[in-house]
Every structure is written in C-alpha cells, then in structure tokens.
C-alpha cells in the first residue's frame, strides 16, 4: 500500500470535526470549555450548538468532575485542553470521578508532544500516555492524522461506554490514512508489510515511520510499518506477529520514552515473544522552545532518526 500525503492538517482539526459531526447525530453530546475552545478545535461545535456548550473557565479539575456529573445524568460530555493540563492537572478527578465510576466522557488531550513548538516545555505533553494508560477502564486513542482523528472521535462517542482519552496535536502534519482502511478501536493497522524489522508507531510519528521505511528499502531492508491508534487496549496480536515474523522492533512516539507507548509494546513483547526493541521517544528530559521541525530533529523524532536507529538494530547481532 502506497500512502500519499493529501496535504498537511493538524490532528486537532480532525478532533473538532469529529465532535461536530457526532454532535449532529447525538443530542446528548455536550462540550465543556476550558478557555481554549478554539485552540482545541471545539469552537465550531460551540457556534453550532451554543446551548450544549458550557464554558467552565481555567479550571480543569472542575471540568473533569462536571463531566462526571453530566455523564451520570445520561449525557456524553467532552472536555479538552492542552494534554499537559487535561491529563495531569485533573488526573485525580480522571482517576476517581471518571475512571473508577467508569463514565463515558471524552477527554481531548490537545497540543500533545514537542510539536507545540515555541511554547516550550511547560506546554509540551510528553507524559500523558504514561499517566493515562495505567488507569483502569480508560481507552487511550492516538490517531495518526486528522482524518483518523475525526473517525476515531466519532467512534469513541458512538461505540464506547467508558472514559476515553484522545491525544492529538496542533501542528499541521501529513494527512495520509486512506478513508476506506478498516479501523477498529483496539486493533492496529498494518500499513506496510515487511519481513526484516517492524516499526511500530503512534500519532503523527506513523508518517515518519513510513518515510523511514522507504529509506530503509533503498538500503535493502524490508521494514514493516504498523500504526497503533489505540494504545489501550493495545492490539497484542499485531505486535506479536511483528515480533515473531521480523524479530526486531522499533517503536516511535512523540512522548517520553519511559512508561509510554514503547513501554506498552515492550510489555506485550517481553512477556510473550521477547525480541530486541528500540524505543524512540524523548529521553527523560523536558522539551524546549523552537520550531516544531527543529525540535523533532533535535529530539530524534523524524524519519531520518528512525532510519538510523532501525539500521543500528538491524546490524546489532548481540
């Protein structure tokens, strides 16, 4: 399958589009605003359905709790803010009021990763996957592009029952996932088959993984590329097939390399089919200001670095 970039779009626009479309079909969908409604892509919903939009100000803990109360009253509330605030500031409310009560609330973790750019370390969510994925009952989604963000958002509203954290970014990134590709929450997607090594990626790192695979092909390495858009529950089968059939795995995430997506893959592989894994992510450090592309380059989150790491792993015969 050859995947083409249809043009760059921020994944947050997919989230906003998904919420708006879901809201047109499902009258119980309510949106809670945390002062940055437009930045997280929810302004179109707020304009279309003002009576279903509730501004709650800069108060993320309260936002999560109010969402719980609405969900207990038969609504499907959505709240979204920067991932750092959504996942971390309100994490106790998410743990107890949302996850322990197992309530169907959509939490949008916006501006995820380094690609927020110039805002710098305080606003770059690099820990949210790690924190959200250990919470019982939660579903953790990480779409690879805007098209997938819209689709997964609609599916999360319509098909899921418990709390959902959906992670997306602000920077415009390639929109490439075919609209007709089979998409099931909890199932990974094989985007390119290959027998020598597997690159398993999440979020917009999937596009970089595809580019790295092309570069590897030129070096005679046949790399498999897998998109994991559901980090929890994770698709064990597609990961274990990759481990058995290619024996080597590189994971890529725009997140800390500890405790996040790579760790989730390693938990599966190490227990069922141990093979060598290279986890590409931010190496236990905070981010900094800079243009998104500069930061991705500096922190090794681009096709070039994935290519290098994959070659190193290919040549690692220990």
């Amino acid at each position: 399958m050859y995947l083409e970039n249809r043009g760059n779009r921020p994944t947050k626009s997919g989230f906003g589009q998904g919420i708006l479309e879901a809201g047109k079909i499902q009258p119980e969908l309510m949106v809670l605003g945390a002062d940055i409604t437009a930045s997280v892509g929810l302004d179109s919903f707020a304009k279309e359905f003002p009576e279903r939009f509730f501004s709650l100000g800069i108060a993320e803990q309260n936002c999560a709790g109010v969402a719980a109360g609405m969900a207990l009253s038969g609504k499907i509330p959505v709240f979204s803010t920067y991932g750092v605030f959504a996942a971390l500031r309100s994490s106790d409310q998410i743990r107890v009021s949302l996850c322990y009560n197992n309530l169907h609330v959509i939490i949008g973790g916006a501006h995820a990763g380094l690609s927020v750019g110039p805002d710098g370390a305080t606003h770059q969510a690099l820990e949210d996957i790690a924190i959200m994925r250990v919470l019982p009952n939660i579903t953790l989604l990480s779409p690879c592009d805007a098209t997938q963000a819209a689709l997964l958002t609609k599916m999360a509203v319509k098909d899921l029952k418990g709390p959902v954290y959906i992670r997306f970014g602000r920077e415009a990134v390639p929109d490439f996932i075919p609209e007709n590709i089979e998409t099931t929450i909890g199932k990974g997607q094989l985007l390119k088959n290959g027998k020598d090594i597997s690159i398993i990626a999440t979020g917009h790192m999937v596009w970089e993984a595809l580019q790295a695979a092309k570069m590897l092909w030129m070096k005679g390495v046949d790399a498999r590329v897998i998109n994991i858009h559901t980090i929890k529950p994770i698709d064990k089968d597609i990961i274990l097939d990759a481990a058995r059939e290619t024996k080597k795995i590189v994971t890529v995430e725009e997140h800390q390399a500890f405790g996040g997506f790579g760790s989730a893959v390693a938990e599966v592989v190490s227990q069922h089919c141990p093979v060598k894994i290279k986890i590409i992510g931010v190496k236990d450090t905070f981010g900094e200001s800079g243009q998104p592309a500069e930061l991705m380059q500096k922190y090794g989150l681009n096709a070039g670095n994935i290519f290098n790491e994959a070659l190193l792993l290919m040549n690692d015969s220990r």
Partner: protein
Amino acid sequence: MTVKKIQDVEDLRKISFHIRRNILRSLAASGSGHTGGSLGLADVFTCLYFSVMNHNPQNPRWEDRDRLVLSIGHVAPVLYATLAQAGYFPVEELLTLRKLGSRLQGHPGRDHGLPGIELSAGSLGQGLSVATGMALAAKYDKKNHRIYCVMGDGELQEGSVWEAAMSAAHYRLDNLCVIVDRNKLQIDGSTSDVMEIEPLADKWRSFGWKVIACNGNDHKDLLSSFSENEKSSGMPVVIIANTLMGKGVKAIENNYRWHGKAPTKEEAEQFIAALE
C-alpha cells in the same frame, strides 16, 4: 413515585437513633472506619432521606429522583445505615462493611452494585464538581429534581471545591444544595489549627451562594433550612450544618481522635446502651 415523607420530629429522632445504632454495629463489625463524622451526620441524613428528598428505594434509578452526592466518601457508614433504614437493602448487610466481596466498600463504589449509591467517591474535593454537572444536566433537561452534596469542613481546604463553587454560581444552579458538615475537626485536630476556613459563610456568599446556617443535629432546624433551600431562586444554596463529631455518644463527642477510628464490639455495645 417517591417515599412517604415524615415531618414529625419525634419520629425522625427515632430513625436517627436506629441509624446511629447501625453505624456503630457496622463499624464494630468491620474493625475500621470513620465513626465521628458518621455519627455527627446521622440527623442530616435522616432528614434528607426521610423528609426532604424525593426518592424510591424500590426504584433506585428512578429518573426524577433527587440525587445525593457524598463527597466525603469516608462517612460511608452513615450513608449505608441510612439507605438500609430506608429499605434499599437489608440492614444485616451493614455487618459486611469493608469486608472482601462486600457491596459496602470503605468509600462508596458504584461498581460493587449497592443500590442507592450515586457516585464512587472518596478523594476529597471532587463531589461538588460532580454535583454541579448533575445540576447543569438537570437544568438542560428541564427536570425539577434537586441535587444534594454532602461535604466536610476540612474538605473545603481543597482548591478544586472553589472551582466548583464558582461554576455552580456562574450557572445559577438553584437546584443544587450543599450541606457542609461543620464539626470543626479534622484528622490532625481542629480546622482552625490545621488550616483556618473561616469566615466560612462569607466565603460562600462572596462566591455567589445563598448561605443558611443551622444546628445540624437538630431535626427541626434542619427541616426549616431544607425548606428554605427549596425557595432559592437563581443561586445555589449551602447549608452550614453545625454538628458535633460523634454526636449521640457522649464518650466520644467532639473528639478528633474518633475521626478515623472504629469502636471495638464491646465499645460499640457500651455506646449503643448510652445512645441518646
């Protein structure tokens, strides 16, 4: 369909006596739990479940019921004893409190299937936000049911409480009523020593709330406060219920050491014999 409401203060006192007795028995059976606050709130819970709230133990999920959000999950024993007294489940089940496999979790847990539990809660400072969400949803749906939220005074030290208080006033949620269990004690000692929360009424007022203060161990005073609450228009209401921690058992009244301690079986029987 709601339960029949009791207005006779003597009848309510008798119910509170049974609830206190069952709180002590369940705590003695469990060997751990929060005695002081549970006893102190018995009169508030009696009034809510037997005189104020529209609810139906035969149909706990009745859509138009009034909701009680217990933000201070640690006083679960008074909620459980009241629900059992009201007929939500057999009184004998109170003896399973905090035991493995029990529906009566140390702090209320909806996932364990006990009827009448609106919210799994116990991490302080969260209940008012949830109650606010319920009240907003009720307004949106043009429903007339009311949301009651029982909070502790020490709990008001949590910052998230004031985020919620601000939002409930912003949306003019006059279908929301907070009851603050003002017993002036918390685990480390008196609230004024641990972290002063006064001037409490002024704090709520300045956040846009209607404030009613009462003796939280006096049924008559409580009933008139609750009826005053129902008249509120355009503002959420807080009832500052001045209570005695451990109320009803002279030996432990107003003693913060009984915040998080359960009586032994012998103590429980002594306390019950001396119950007022």
